[in-house]
């Protein structure tokens, strides 16, 4: 229950946080704590230093910047859910955030924490992948933008270097896009057994101009099912076609097998939810 001892640092600036991150050994970043603190309480994680980003000002703003929206890493899921700007200009994020955990988790959990933690069943990773978002990492060597398709490496592994901090997420303003996030939720926690984020654009004739899907819960990281997208891009989205395309959502994917779903069932659920998410986006 009680974590192993550690030193607690509460920097007041990003610079200070980065310096600490570089200077200390065996260090973890504390954002919302919804993923890290449980691991520490179970003594599965025993960092010697904890850097709390919570007192650094300016890390939770949401602002429009040209054709993008810049979201601070410490923006909570609740703030994503209730943001008027996002609801109008990038609804996939509030749609996804509203399905995360419960009220308390949404009050505390942050988008930066969620992406940096890269839980294979995380909801926001699927959404940002479908949005083609970019992630800003800041470290002692400066700052860089990482495309989401280059960000998620594997089970709890991302492109972030150990001395970098995720500070912002840049998402596109969606013009005429139809979005949805659906998941088969685990009891109790609402975690995705399978989650599908769908982002579509139709051309004036009603054909599929653009489609991007983010799949979570299926394998060790979130991914874009290229097969499915290729089959639907440029076509008229008839039910039968969507169904056929959805059946390929797990092609070449190593599907997870655990107490929440066998490989076989999960594969099936992924197809069902891919179909349903696309249909839901169409109706949006």
């Amino acid at each position: 229950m009680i974590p192993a001892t550690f030193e607690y640092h509460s920097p007041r600036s990003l610079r200070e946080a980065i310096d600490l991150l570089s200077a200390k050994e065996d260090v973890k970043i504390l954002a919302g704590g919804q993923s890290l603190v449980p691991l520490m309480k179970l003594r599965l994680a025993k960092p010697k230093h904890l850097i709390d980003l919570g007192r650094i000002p300016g890390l939770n703003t949401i602002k429009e910047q040209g054709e993008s929206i810049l979201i601070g890493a410490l923006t909570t899921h609740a703030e994503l859910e209730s943001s008027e700007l996002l609801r109008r200009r990038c609804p996939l994020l509030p749609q996804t955030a509203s399905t995360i955990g419960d009220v308390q988790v949404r009050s505390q959990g942050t988008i930066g924490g969620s992406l940096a933690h890269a839980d294979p069943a995380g909801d926001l990773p699927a959404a940002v992948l479908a949005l083609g978002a970019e992630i800003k990492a800041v470290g002692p060597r400066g700052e860089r933008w990482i495309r989401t398709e280059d960000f998620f490496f594997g089970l709890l592994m991302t492109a972030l270097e150990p001395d970098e901090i995720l500070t912002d997420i840049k998402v596109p303003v969606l013009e005429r896009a139809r979005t949805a996030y659906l998941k088969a939720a685990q009891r109790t926690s609402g975690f995705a057994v399978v989650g599908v984020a769908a982002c579509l654009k139709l051309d004036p004739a009603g054909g599929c101009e653009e489609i991007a899907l983010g799949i979570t819960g299926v394998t060790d990281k979130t991914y874009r099912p290229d097969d499915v997208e290729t089959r639907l891009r440029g076509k008229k989205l008839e039910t039968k076609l969507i169904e056929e395309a959805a059946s390929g959502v797990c092609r070449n994917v190593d599907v997870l097998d655990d107490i929440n779903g066998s490989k076989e069932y999960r594969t099936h659920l992924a197809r069902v939810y891919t179909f349903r998410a696309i249909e839901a986006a169409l109706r949006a």
Partner: protein
Amino acid sequence: MAETKYVGKTIRGKEAPRHVSGRGNFVDDIVLRGMLHAVILRSPHAHARIAKVDAEAALNHPGVLSVVTPADVQSMTRPFKPGRYAAGLTKPIFEYATAVDKVRYVGEPVAAVAARDRGSAEDALELISVDYEPLPAVVDTRDAMSPTSPPLFEELGANLAWRGVLTYGNIEAAFAEADQIVRERLKIHRYSSTPLEPFACIASFDASTQKLTVWVNAQVPEVIYDALREALGLEDVRVIIPDIGGSFGQKIHLIRKYVVITSLLALKSRRPVKWIEDRSEHMMAAGHACAQEFDVEAAVKRDGTVLGLRFKEIDDVGGSVSTLTIHFTNKLNNLTNTYKVQNISMEGYSVVTNKCPVVPNRGIGKPGMCFIWERIMDRIAEALSLSPIEVRQVNLVPPDQFPYTTPNGNVYDSGDYPALLQQALKSIGYEKFREEQRREREKGRLLGIGVVVGVEPGGRNAARDLAIFPEMKETPGSGGVNGATIKLEKNGTVALFLGSPNSGQSHETTSAQVAADILGISTEKISTSTPFDSDLAPWGVAAANSGNNFHLYDIGAVHGAATRLKEKILKLAAHVLDAAPAELTIENGTVHAPGSPLKKVTFAELGKIAYGNQALMPKGFEAGLQTTFYYTFPHADTNLVPGSDRKVRAQFTFSAAAHAVIVEVDRHTGKVHVLRYLIVSDNGVVINPRVVEGQAYGSAAHGISVALGEGFIYNSEGQLLTITLTDYGKSSTLETPRIEIEHHPVPSPFTALGQKAAGEGAAIPSPAAIASAVEDALRPLGVKVRELPLTPEAVWRLIKNAQGGNSKFEIRNSK
């Protein structure tokens, strides 16, 4: 006197104000000066020998004052003697508070540390080194049945630790006479009611008086009291039980191990020691409800009459023999359910496995018995092309036969099962639903309805197990005993002391209602007692926090004590008012004599006399206004102690209910949505409707959750994969359906107020109700529901397999 001014009404609860203000008094809220904090080292292996335990480094860790190892436990304590729960054990197997030379389940306690603060204790725990020699884990029940599986208890030789058969009536004749034999095999899984507050205890030893005091959230004081005296050889033990954060049978049995461990730390360190269990520990080691497999056969006539029922059950009791047969013996309580069958045979097998030991979780074997009955009824209906309702109606005990004696000796006090069933059918709109079901099936929707009935027995008879184990060496006692004390204070208020602890069933409130009606005083003038204190409380063998026992023993004791107190009050008042006791009336705490409105005396005035004014007392009057009453069930004669015919009153009162549930199954995901869940319940005279309803809602919600997915999962190495509530699958507000209840009370002629049990209640039929409804929904696909839980994947597989295992991937027409 207003006989039922309070009984029958929902009054403002007495416990609620402190809880909504955060002023409950739970064990962890108690602090003693100089108190240490304990943590427990648990086995990471399912099955292993303990070669060596080295706690030196832990003992030397800063802040640590005491360590307990298996060697300490063996030298400083005596083992628990196999008790009533271990009935059937042929060789004496003594279990200690911790593992000693072997561990038999992941999470089994091995050692413990007490330190100045919890963090230091946990740090020190990591310094204890234990050399284990892992042994092959016995996990699968079938493997455990095999004589070649590695034995958990060498003394027993085999893991099939008990088998037995009990037959009532003439089962061979029944099967010979039958028009048809209907068979089914069923399975239910391991689960738990997971009380939100895990185990907690504080032990404090006063060396000068050699008195051990423990504060513990245990349900049955006697278990703790006996365990401490047996294990530690202490005569003077005091057990204090404050508010309990939920119990459900989880806090009866294995909790005694931890009280002994904590007490040992207290004795060694000479300081009070507090131990608070973590959720993950509770999931691994506090106890599970037994996984059971049933092989059922019913001998039936063409009209659906069940001539005889025969079943074989295999109970996976986990890594201890101390609860060897409880899930089997408890079936005597509801063996014939609500049916008039005369011939019934039960065969039991208990296997030990390398999993958490089983404990008497809510229902204890009775949900299994009801599952057997209600699944076989549906199967019979199918086999005979009758409706599942008809089959049940044909077999129900008719209302004019009460009190009704079952073939195994239960005397059902009262009931009207056909009326419960009828009301349930009416309120759920059964016929209308069937039409809707037909229409919607054509559109591809899978709607289903399940209607089941279940009896809820109540009121313990300690002699019950003699029916199966007449050779029990330790006399288990018989019937039940519990007491209550009522005192009229000298300021005219009343103090009520129960003989049982309290864990959310509103015992303080309902007992105050009963006392208030008898005494003629407002419930607001009655103060009730929590904590339970074994030094002061009038407790007996039936002192147990359970709705099952409370309604009979505690209410009976309160009724008796209040009645006796009223007699004393009237005797004194009669003397003071110069009237005859029979002429007096009581209203609102004032005794009135006829003749003049001035001829009255208040309780406060009587109190002042009784506690201080000898001259005004009648001759021979025992001073004071306090009475204690120990209740035993007055109508227990028939079948109280089983004779050679093995007939016994397993319990004394019999509530019953009909459950009706409508579900929809999403064929593509296997998810089951409960659209309506209705209970029509007979709990006898209801003392407080909201309390009884709360018990029904809570127990139904749990049964539904068990049926639809919550449960424990072990891997083949005996590792528990579900140690968090999340992985286990506990239901939140989002997974729990709305539940409706209608009361249909049929008073008991035998109890003080006509009241019957309400506690285990809806947990008994609800798994069967869900199974029935899901099967009904999937009938057109040829699915049979035989196993729980019905997780989405399990349902999806049932559908897939029924369709030849080759379901076309077609997701249109999805909901």
